[in-house]
């Protein structure tokens, strides 16, 4: 399965798609990236006059790349143009280390720890362009074709 095909199967679109590209992918994990645009919708209110990417959005970006893109790859044999995956986030635990400002590019790396009975659980981390740790945690979801 091509990396572009995975992104095309994602059930998100602007302004809530937080995947620009996938750098590597295998049965065991994935690495991908996203650049937060200067005019993302949430910067208007978070914070007043001081735009910083909300933690929930960083978590969302990590889930879209680390869990959903990887999940689509793992289900690739069962998916098609008409057969899209159903996805539900079921748990996440996240620690944050550095803020992400408008215009910053982040890289997300995820390692599969469990994929059984439709449940995918991953250790996920996000780093900034200097390779510094931005956030780290675990994300779980249920995936169904």
């Amino acid at each position, binding site marked *: 399965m091509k990396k572009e095909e995975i992104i095309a199967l994602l059930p998100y679109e602007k302004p809530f798609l937080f995947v620009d590209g996938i750098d590597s992918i295998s049965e065991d994990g994935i690495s991908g990236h996203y650049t937060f645009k200067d005019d993302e919708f949430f910067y208007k209110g978070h914070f007043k006059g001081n735009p910083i990417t909300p933690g929930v959005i960083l978590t969302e970006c990590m889930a879209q790349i680390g869990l959903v893109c990887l999940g689509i790859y793992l289900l690739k044999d069962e998916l098609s143009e008409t057969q899209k995956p159903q996805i*539900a986030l*079921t748990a996440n635990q996240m620690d944050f280390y550095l803020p992400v400002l408008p215009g910053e590019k982040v890289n997300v790396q995820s390692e599969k720890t469990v994929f059984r009975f439709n*449940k995918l659980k991953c250790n996920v981390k996000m780093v900034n362009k200097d390779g510094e740790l931005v956030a780290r945690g675990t994300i779980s979801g249920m995936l169904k074709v």
Partner: protein
Amino acid sequence: MNNDELITKLKTIIAPYIQDEEAFKNLSEDTDFVKDLKINSANLVDIILDIEDEFDIRLENDDMEKMLDVKSAMAIVTSKLNK
């Protein structure tokens, strides 16, 4: 292992995932994981994985589908242990 021992072990495994304390307190063989204990689908998978570790057995998709209440979990574990 007798039924009481089995149910005690299962109770320990289930405890971290339950949402309804009252139903858990009154747990019996008829207690339903989703309807009574309000366990979500992902945590149901966690329970299955924990059962595998605790009893050193391997569960398959059929087992997962059947494992809806305490009674069926006990039956499945017992049948795997006797294999």
